[in-house]
């Protein structure tokens, strides 16, 4: 019935999906509040519209509303949602259920969470066509395998027999895109499908989406906060903020000449704003990590022979894909994970391996800020207690003195004093991260380890946090060990850059040296994978040899040879796989781990 309708319904001019005056409310502590405030949207067949905005903009809610669906704690209060002539707001649950999965399908942000861990991937692929009686189980599975094959998934015949946890994040996300196609729907909702991925992985997923949507002429709503990403996909963009429409236009127009200030801010947040490294006379080494090798339990070495020098007052950034050992490095420095070999010196003195062997003063001088402010703040403590504790613990401050210092700190992190009595649940993500910074500052540290401090934040907020960190460094002279997977962020804040790959240093040196040729092949891959704010970038990048060789591969920790050899476009056959790349240091103190000479790398970088 439905299948028939699909074939003869609607003319080209008639929109496939139409939303008029859509209003959605959400339940909060203060009762029902409007989170989508009268949105109109039109989507034709084969058209892709991008919904862009920061968190809380209501973009996912609108995306889901296109399926006639409101999450628990949300309700659609007004407006029309007409899909192919069917009014979804008045349609019965059963009618909507029959549309979902068959004519409108959904791709969630995190495939790892959205695939049911208890079932094999192909079974989940086949579930929709079988449940909706469109295909038999064997036919459905066959179709799945065919789709996997056409999407260049590795081992397409058998990958479907795996469980979700056995497949890497990027592949999983691509299989979710495939699953959305199981019944060849008219409309697919993409809900931030690449947000949680590394840049290199992001490219492969974007490629898959592109193949599916554009090549098969499916209409799509693409929800994201990343303009650069959506610029590669969408014909039109809707910029949203707090449930309101800010601007809607063709993608090209928005990128070129945004009409609203907010849109401009979004564009600016993605722009690279490189920090100029100031010269410091007689730089002093604050922290030196010497040939550290570390791992968990009886597992393999996650870090191998890593040596890093951090100068006082500088920012050293550690970059790499997930699994490269960045966070492990942070744990070794903080003492949470004693190193297997090697040592750490802090202010010229050896720092004990284990946390509980460190003296209070040593603990005080090294502070850490971590990735997820949500779980870094005790939900039962007020800001006063959170910031106040290090003050009383390390500095013995009490009463008025402490209160005053807390206020100073709040001022430093640009939050009003009224925040002192708030609970973390009453703060936004950016505010929480500021509190984390204040807590670290309260200890009056010399070194702050920043572990992906901006990756959970919206771009504008992240930018503000980076500015804050930079300001604090300028004012207080604090040193940062800055861990990030985002090269833009690193470019914005770092003086020195360490590129980690599979637990080893691939390249390290001053930022200018690392981000300019000669490139280490891995650095080059990373740099080329960062989306650029222009249409057509994706196609270009996909055609580079780095992308061809480097994407769609997992990071593997190897004992011998160069771990990157498999993904390296200029790997020397037999040599790179077999023997460890030598460390080459230039006169400027720049270090490469590569079989190729600097000259060769320089030449290849021009390619």
């Amino acid at each position, binding site marked *: 019935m439905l299948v028939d309708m699909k074939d003869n319904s609607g003319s080209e001019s008639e929109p496939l999906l139409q939303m008029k005056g859509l209003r959605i409310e959400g339940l909060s502590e203060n009762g029902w509040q409007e989170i989508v405030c009268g949105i109109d949207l039109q989507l034709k067949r084969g058209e892709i519209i991008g919904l862009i905005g920061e968190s809380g903009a209501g973009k996912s809610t609108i995306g889901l509303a296109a399926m006639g669906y409101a999450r*628990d704690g949300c309700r659609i209060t007004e407006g029309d949602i007409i899909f192919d002539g069917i009014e979804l707001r008045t349609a019965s649950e059963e009618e909507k259920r029959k549309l979902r999965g068959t004519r409108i399908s959904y791709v969630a942000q995190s495939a790892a969470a959205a695939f049911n861990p208890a079932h094999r991937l192909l079974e989940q692929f086949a579930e929709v066509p079988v449940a909706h009686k469109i295909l038999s189980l064997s036919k459905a599975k066959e179709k799945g395998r065919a789709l996997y094959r056409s999407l260049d998934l590795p081992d397409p015949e058998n990958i479907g027999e795996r469980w979700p946890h056995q497949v890497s994040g990027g592949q999983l996300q691509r299989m979710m895109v495939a699953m959305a196609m199981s019944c060849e729907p008219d409309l697919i909702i993409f809900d931030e499908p690449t947000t949680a991925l590394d840049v290199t992985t992001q490219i492969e997923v974007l490629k898959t989406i592109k193949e599916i949507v554009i090549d098969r002429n499916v209409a799509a709503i693409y929800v994201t906060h990343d303009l650069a990403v959506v610029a590669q996909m969408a014909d039109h963009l809707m910029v949203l903020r707090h449930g309101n429409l800010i601007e809607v236009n063709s993608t090209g127009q928005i990128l070129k000449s945004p009409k609203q200030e907010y849109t401009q801010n979004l564009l600016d947040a993605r722009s690279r704003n490189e920090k100029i490294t100031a010269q410091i006379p007689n730089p002093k080494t604050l922290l030196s990590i010497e040939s550290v090798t570390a791992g968990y339990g009886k597992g393999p070495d996650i870090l191998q022979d890593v040596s890093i020098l951090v100068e006082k007052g500088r920012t050293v950034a550690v970059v790499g894909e997930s699994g490269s050992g960045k966070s492990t490095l942070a744990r070794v420095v903080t*003492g949470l994970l004693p190193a297997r070999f090697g040592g750490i010196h802090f202010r010229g003195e050896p720092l004990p391996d284990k946390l509980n062997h460190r003296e209070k003063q040593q603990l005080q001088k090294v502070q850490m800020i971590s990735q997820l402010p949500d*779980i870094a703040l005790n939900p039962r403590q007020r800001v006063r207690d959170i910031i106040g504790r290090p003050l009383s613990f390390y500095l013995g401050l009490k009463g008025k003195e402490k209160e005053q210092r807390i206020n100073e700190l709040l001022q430093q992190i640009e939050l009003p004093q009224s925040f002192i009595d708030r609970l973390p649940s009453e703060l936004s993500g950016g505010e929480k991260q500021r509190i984390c910074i204040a807590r670290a500052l309260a200890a009056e540290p010399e070194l702050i380890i920043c572990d992906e401090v901006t990756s959970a934040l919206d771009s504008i907020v992240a930018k503000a946090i980076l500015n804050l960190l930079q300001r604090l460094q300028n004012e207080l002279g604090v040193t940062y060990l800055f861990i990030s997977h985002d090269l833009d962020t690193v470019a914005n804040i770092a003086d020195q850059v360490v590129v980690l790959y599979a637990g080893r240093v691939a390249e390290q040196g001053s930022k200018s040296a690392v981000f300019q040729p000669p490139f280490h092949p891995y650095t080059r891959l990373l740099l080329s994978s960062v989306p650029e704010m222009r249409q057509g970038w994706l196609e270009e990048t996909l055609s580079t040899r780095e992308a061809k060789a480097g994407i769609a591969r997992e990071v593997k920790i190897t004992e011998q040879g160069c771990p990157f050899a498999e993904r390296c476009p200029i790997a020397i056959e037999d040599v790179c796989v077999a023997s460890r790349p030598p460390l080459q240091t230039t006169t400027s103190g720049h270090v490469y781990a590569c079989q190729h000479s600097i000259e060769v790398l320089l030449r290849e970088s021009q390619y």
Partner: protein
Amino acid sequence: MNNMFKTLSSAPLSAKFGMIVIFTYLVVAVFAPLIAPYGEREILGRAYELWSSEYPLGTDNLGRDMLSRLIYGARNTLGLTLTITVLAFLLGGILGMIAAALGGWVDQILSRIVDVFMAIPSLIFALLILSIFGTSMPYLIATIVVLDATRVFRIARATAMNVAVMDYVEVARLRGEKLGWVIRKEILPNITAPLLAEFGLRFCFVFLFISALSFLGLGIQPPTADWGSMVRDSSTLISYGDVTPLIPAGAIALLTVAVNFVVDWMLHRSSGLKDVS
């Protein structure tokens, strides 16, 4: 304070009912001597007198006023149960949090000890201990406390484990905080909701366990009125359809139901599930 009233008034009907019942019981327990028409052990009339204006619920097997016994029973039973439950939570809760916070061999040793205790049938364990040391109040309390502490340990450890992996606990440890502070300030406030719910359930189980012990003759010393013994003393009457034993049994059941209603509501609140549909 205002907040609390707001929360309470938003409670569903069942929870409100539960809170009213618990409150009533507490009032009765605290003011037992003022409320009860007769003394706890005063022998007034013949055995099993019928309900009358003089004895609103009749008399028990020794001719004591049933209503007065019931009221004093609230005091004794609730007091004892509360004491035991609180002690069990102190013991099991603290050890559970320590096990979770420290991990490693401390956790291993504590967990294995608890395993051993849990594998011994609790009634048998109680029988053994109470046979050895007699059923005096301290031993009765100690025995049930130990038994229940093992259960509390498990839940406290499990919930504390979830909290212990949180970044803010790591931050506290990085700061160099001592174990006591980590447990008291970082872990405990975040597991109070499940612990409170468990407290309600434990309270009921202790309550029923004391009744079971009373049934086996190992409960509270006479002539102290306790509901379990009151049920047992008149349980043979049930076979004749007499309602006498129903009264103390009903009192036990009503309180347990009430506590469970409140616990349900608290669990629902703490789970953060927004069930609107």
